[in-house]
């Protein structure tokens, strides 16, 4: 396996109260500028790789930094620290505005969460799919038309629908337009941000099968963001579990969901409703997540909600440790291993 994307020690912080307005500006002036403002640690020191042709799932609750991470990877926002390497090329240092016109822009594309909200309402299906081709491939005229029609049929979108506007399409058709737009420029990495969250189960299945077929046909790598674990389990080879800006567990999807090692993953897996069992006496999380604003770097982010938490979790932040094919950031991961192994 060759590495396609290598993310190392990536962090993104947002200042709180750095907004516009006279009052905010005055306050910043007298308290020492943006640097001194408290910060939300949206993503904090995250490292992972995506291989060529691999499907990686990214799961975690809302507010854990999934979308920030994804937006930085697709270079829509700039990271605060860390590196993002595509093959051997460093992308993190290029400002996102410059990268928008870069030759590698076409290699990372994104399918957004709500296809209805993420397309221009004044663009027809054709214009939507043609837009990235015009900008990045400089296609015009018949070449453009041919390419749009090829992509549309690959995505199972009837050609007569290409003249329609988004509001004239059904949810499933809109999702197809969003996917067609993203794969039109033949990306190597496709980032999917909850592509099926707004769809009914019957449509969801069709879209998931389409995604799997496209991946086989074009050998793309996927980063699949979702909070639906049953979908992640079906689609993904490997999974990353995030909690408050940190990766707390990673590993092959089947293993992670069958033997979750981190207490948060355990609670997450236990919370998924399943068809053929009753979920009455299950592991439950109590309380609210810790504040992501200037968190104490020596306290585990999960402390306070963790059923296994002890005083040790208050003194040192657990590092991401390796267990065979898995990585877990918990002091007590050994306890949950199927058979005792020595931590490396």
């Amino acid at each position: 396996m060759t590495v396609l994307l290598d993310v190392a020690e990536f962090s993104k912080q947002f200042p709180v109260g750095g907004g516009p307005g006279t009052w905010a500006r005055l306050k910043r002036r007298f308290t020492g500028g943006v640097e001194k403002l408290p910060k939300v640690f949206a993503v904090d020191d995250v490292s992972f790789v995506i291989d060529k042709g691999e499907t990686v799932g990214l799961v975690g609750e809302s507010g854990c930094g999934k979308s920030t991470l994804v937006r930085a990877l697709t270079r829509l926002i700039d990271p605060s620290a860390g590196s993002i390497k595509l093959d051997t090329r460093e992308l993190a240092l290029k400002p996102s505005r410059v990268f928008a016109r870069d030759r590698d822009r076409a290699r990372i594309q994104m399918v957004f969460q709500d296809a209805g909200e993420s397309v221009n309402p004044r663009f027809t299906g054709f214009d939507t799919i043609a837009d990235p081709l015009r900008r990045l491939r400089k296609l015009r005229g018949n070449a453009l038309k041919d390419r749009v029609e090829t992509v549309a049929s690959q995505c199972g979108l009837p050609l007569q629908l290409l003249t329609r506007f988004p509001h004239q399409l059904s949810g499933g058709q809109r999702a197809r337009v969003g996917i067609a737009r993203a794969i039109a420029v033949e990306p190597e990495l496709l980032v999917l941000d909850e592509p099926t969250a707004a769809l009914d189960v019957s449509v969801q299945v069709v879209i998931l099968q389409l995604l799997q077929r496209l991946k086989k046909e074009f050998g793309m790598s996927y980063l699949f963001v979702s909070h639906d674990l049953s979908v992640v389990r079906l689609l993904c080879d490997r999974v990353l579990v995030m909690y408050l800006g940190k990766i707390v567990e990673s590993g092959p999807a089947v293993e992670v969901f069958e033997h979750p090692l981190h207490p948060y993953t355990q609670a997450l897996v236990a919370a998924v409703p399943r068809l053929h069992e009753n979920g009455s006496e299950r592991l439950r999380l109590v309380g609210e997540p810790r504040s992501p604003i200037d968190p104490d770097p020596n306290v585990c982010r999960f402390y306070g909600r963790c059923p296994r938490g002890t005083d040790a979790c208050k003194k040192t932040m657990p590092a991401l440790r390796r267990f065979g094919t898995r990585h877990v950031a918990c002091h007590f991961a050994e306890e949950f291993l199927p058979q005792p192994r020595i931590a490396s």
Partner: protein
Amino acid sequence: MTLAPTLSVEGLSVEFRTRSGMVRALDNVSFSVGKGETIALVGESGSGKSVTAYAVMGILDPAGRVSAGRAMLGTLDLLSAKPAKLAEVRGRDIAMIFQNPRTALNPIRTVGRQIADVLMRHGKVSRRDAPAQAVEMLRAVGITDPARRAKAYPFEMSGGMCQRVMIAIALAAKPALLIADEPTTGLDVTTQAVIMDLINDLATKMGMATIFITHDLALAGQRSARIVVMHAGHVVENAPTAELFAQPRHPYTAELIAATPDSAVSLDKLASIPGSLPDLRRADLPPCRYSERCPRKIGACAQPLPHLDLGGGHIVACWNLVPERHIIAPTVSAA
């Protein structure tokens, strides 16, 4: 069902007047829920789940009209009751939890005040005692530091907390019937589990009847004793949960179960339901609104819909039932 049901909906039909014609959103919907029982209304978006709840609550859009049917709460027919009578019943005897707590709560009133309002209106609580009781309600729904939270506005709280406040408001007057319309959509799975536990616990404690509306079949199966499957304004199947999953008899239910990601071992094995809901404005709607998507369509489907009672409260509206042998084996799912 030994006792008289808390709510019994019989032959409910609802129409919406629109510019492009009459939308027959509900047609002959019947089900009932007993004291302390939890039932789930399940179906795709547009199948009429929420409209059913709105009709029962008497909060249909002005363009909507109940064209037939009764909804009996004890001896009171909610559909023909006077608005003043309904206002008395709503909140005291029936309460509803809405899908999006942020938009359903009043943004410019503290949450404590909003709970106190319900207590004063329906709970026979004096103005002086109401705030303290509101704090108690917040404590009962598991909000930490309730005295301080009672003074907070909805925008200061997370989605999960807002939903707890909605539950506190709904349960403040100890209603006999609770309608929860997709109470956990938009919440994380971990929060969803906690909120559903809370609703279940409180419902059991108060002996409340609960109607739980969801599009998530797995969640419905976990939380309710009986499932009512809806499609395009029809009740297609109504059965005890375990029986429905082990032995779905309506083709639509069978497809819905097969399309739920949890039931499949791999993505290729996951079934998809072809077609989409029929246009409910059409004049030539077939008697069975699923027949145009149905793989088991036969000649008899052109006759008016049957309501076959298979015993044990298992009711199916289909002429060509999925045969009993055709069991979808439960997959062994790892905990």
